[in-house]
């Protein structure tokens, strides 16, 4: 260095202060952002970003869901964004020009302890948000910090802290959940790489352990159960000690992320067969002109995609709301069959039978090592490419090991109804199919058998002898485990 030694620290300090100044002052220095799915990123550029006139996937998504610092609450979605709906009772002009509004709330609801802002929903001031300078929760008196543009009339509906639930849900999610589940809920947070099984990727809208039937989404109570009790055998811990309002906020935010991911997936599904980058390349190769394809895409974005943007939202709203209804819940038609040795034997018979074929995946001695686990499989979603490792895979492309029932560790819950639901609806997203057409009594026999497996002295000891080998043989070169 040409500088004298005593100037070196000075130069270093100068450089550091410049860096600190730039980084420290930058608004986006430490912002987080939602990632776009692989599907989105594999579309043509114009399909992703859209054109000046017509929005593409990314634009539609950002317009309806925002980014983590500036969230957007799409009212179409069945999410509790937080806030209390109230209506204006009286308006009082206070001395220093500030408006004092007295708010009442519906029957059975309570005024919140704190109020930061008031959004006017109906009336002349509709759409305006005003900060609250002072709030008295007992009387409902809110002193507004600023005067809204128009007149406030008695009877106007307004919401207190609308969106506060989503906002606090996001902050709690970032603190408790995002390091595994990722900012976008893609199951790819910083700690996820060290985990097997991987954390859930919410963006399919599919959650494995539910009490609802196989074609329904997870209900709020299912998500609540998972968050409260954790999933033994995985890295999902229990958040039993979390306060109820925090718990609720996190669940709503998880649903928000899940709906966002699903919405993105549905938008991409509209475009991917004709306008993915691969499709574009193969179309160019087969002789179509670039300009033609662009024109076609423009038309599609202008007409079809814009139209779908609303209907896809409606679909989402419909299926997610349906999950919280009673019709979606699995209710066995008969109470649980008494847990007798005969029932367990019958369960074992059913387990081994060709009607249900449980042993194919779960193995003859229920150790999760059936013949399906050693075959190499093709991925139907990726044009039948072979998976890298043998065995079953779930829709998240993770290795889906059938449960080793000898361990007595039941991820979705160990109550009989939980096991019943697993069998009846299958495990959504995984290779456990639903057996909803099996008589419920038979399912109970199997449940009784499964609950007894960890305590068997020998595999199958509570049941009859297993069925002969060749009916559970694996294809080609793989040999099945010999029964005893």
């Amino acid at each position, binding site marked *: 260095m040409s500088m004298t030694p005593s100037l070196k620290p000075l130069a270093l300090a100068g450089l550091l202060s410049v860096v600190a100044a730039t980084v420290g002052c930058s608004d986006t220095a430490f912002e987080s952002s939602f990632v776009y799915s692989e599907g989105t990123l594999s579309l043509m550029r114009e399909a992703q970003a859209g054109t000046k006139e017509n929005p593409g996937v990314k634009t539609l998504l950002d317009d309806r869901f925002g980014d983590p610092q500036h969230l957007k609450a799409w009212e179409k979605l069945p999410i509790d964004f937080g806030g209390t709906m109230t209506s204006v009772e009286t308006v009082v002009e206070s001395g220093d020009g500030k408006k004092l509004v007295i708010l009442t709330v519906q029957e059975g609801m309570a005024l919140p302890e704190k109020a930061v802002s008031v959004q006017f929903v109906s009336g002349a001031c509709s759409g305006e948000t005003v900060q609250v300078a002072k709030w008295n929760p007992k009387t409902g008196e809110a002193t507004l910090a600023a005067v809204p543009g128009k007149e406030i009339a008695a009877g106007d509906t307004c919401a207190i802290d609308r969106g506060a639930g989503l906002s606090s849900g996001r902050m709690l999610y970032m603190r*408790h959940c995002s*390091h595994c589940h990722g900012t976008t809920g893609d199951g790819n947070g910083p*700690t996820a790489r060290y985990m097997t099984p991987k954390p859930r990727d919410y963006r399919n809208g599919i959650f494995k352990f539910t*009490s609802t039937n196989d074609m329904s989404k997870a209900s*709020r*109570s299912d998500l*609540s*159960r998972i968050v*409260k*009790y*954790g999933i*033994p055998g995985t*890295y999902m*811990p*229990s958040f*039993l*000690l979390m306060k*109820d309002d925090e718990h*609720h906020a996190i669940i709503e935010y998880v649903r928000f992320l899940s709906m966002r991911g699903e919405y993105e997936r549905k938008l991409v599904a509209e475009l991917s067969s004709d306008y993915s980058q691969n499709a574009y390349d193969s179309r160019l190769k087969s002789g179509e002109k670039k300009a033609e394809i662009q024109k076609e895409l423009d038309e599609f974005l202008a007409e079809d995609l814009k139209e779908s943007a609303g209907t896809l939202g409606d679909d989402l709203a419909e299926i997610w709301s349906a999950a919280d209804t*009673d019709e979606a*819940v*699995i*209710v*066995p038609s*008969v*109470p*649980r069959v008494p847990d007798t040795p005969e029932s367990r034997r019958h369960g074992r018979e059913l387990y081994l039978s060709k009607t249900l074929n449980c042993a194919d995946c779960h193995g003859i001695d229920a150790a999760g090592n059936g013949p399906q686990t050693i075959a190499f499989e093709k991925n139907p979603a990726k044009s039948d490419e072979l998976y890298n490792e043998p065995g079953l895979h779930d829709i998240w492309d993770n290795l889906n090991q059938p449960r080793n029932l000898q361990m*007595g560790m039941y991820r979705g819950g*160990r*109550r*009989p*109804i939980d096991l*019943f*639901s697993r069998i009846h609806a299958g495990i959504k997203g995984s290779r456990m199919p639903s057996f909803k057409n099996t008589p419920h009594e038979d399912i*109970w026999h199997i449940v009784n058998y499964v*609950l*007894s497996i*960890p*305590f068997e002295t020998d595999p199958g000891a509570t049941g009859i002898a297993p069925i002969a080998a060749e009916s559970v043989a694996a294809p080609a070169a793989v040999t099945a485990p010999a029964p005893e």
Partner: protein
Amino acid sequence: MKKFWALFFFFWPTVAIISCLIAPSRGWWFPGAPMSRTGIQIDGLFYLILIIVTITFVATQYVLAYALWMGATKDPGSKAFFSHGSHKLEIVWTIVPSFILVFISLSQLDVLAEIRVISKFPEKATKVAEVTARQFEWRIRYPKPGSELTTEENPGDLYYVNELHVPTGKPVIINLRTQDVQHAFFSPQLRVKQDAVPGLVIPVWFDVLEVGTYDLVCAELCGWGHYKMKARIVAQSQGSVDKYLKELEAEQNEDGTKSEAAKTDDE
């Protein structure tokens, strides 16, 4: 200048003593009164040591302050006193502390034995649950009501997570295990702490005096979630605990067909 330094080194020990004196009233002290029998004994030992140490501290600091002040206010011209040391003094201040230390170590032996030595556990202590620590929660297994807790799982055992119910007024034992790494079963209010070591089943006993809900936290760094690895210990009367276990049993045998429970709603 010298006087300043003398006062400086006298000031801080004084601050320390005053802080200790006002600490209990400001809540900088124990996490609440001890809620278990051994907790009272442990607190007693703590106070014993505290008193001994305080006396020693005050005495030595006073002597130091005195020497500093004397040195500071001495006439600059006067000659320093050179001492060749005092053999007798050295013997005294070696023997006396060692006696004190031996006294301390002997006086805590019985409490240590009561807590740690299995043969010294109270005879009437009953095994109520097996607590398995795992990253980052506490899994609880109660024996089937009416049966004994064994180290193996038995059909009919009841399972829960992050909430341990124990009866008050009698010594209870929990078997502490861990599924993955080292954790520690630490209840500050009950003054119970025991490391959970992978591969071992360690019995931990305590006798809760009062009904209440106490914290159970992890006290051995076990990963990123160590700081929030909390659970509740709910101490109730034996009757309430039995009732709770019955409810847990009913919940665990839930088959979804009872009309009000069919919705499996826990919110």
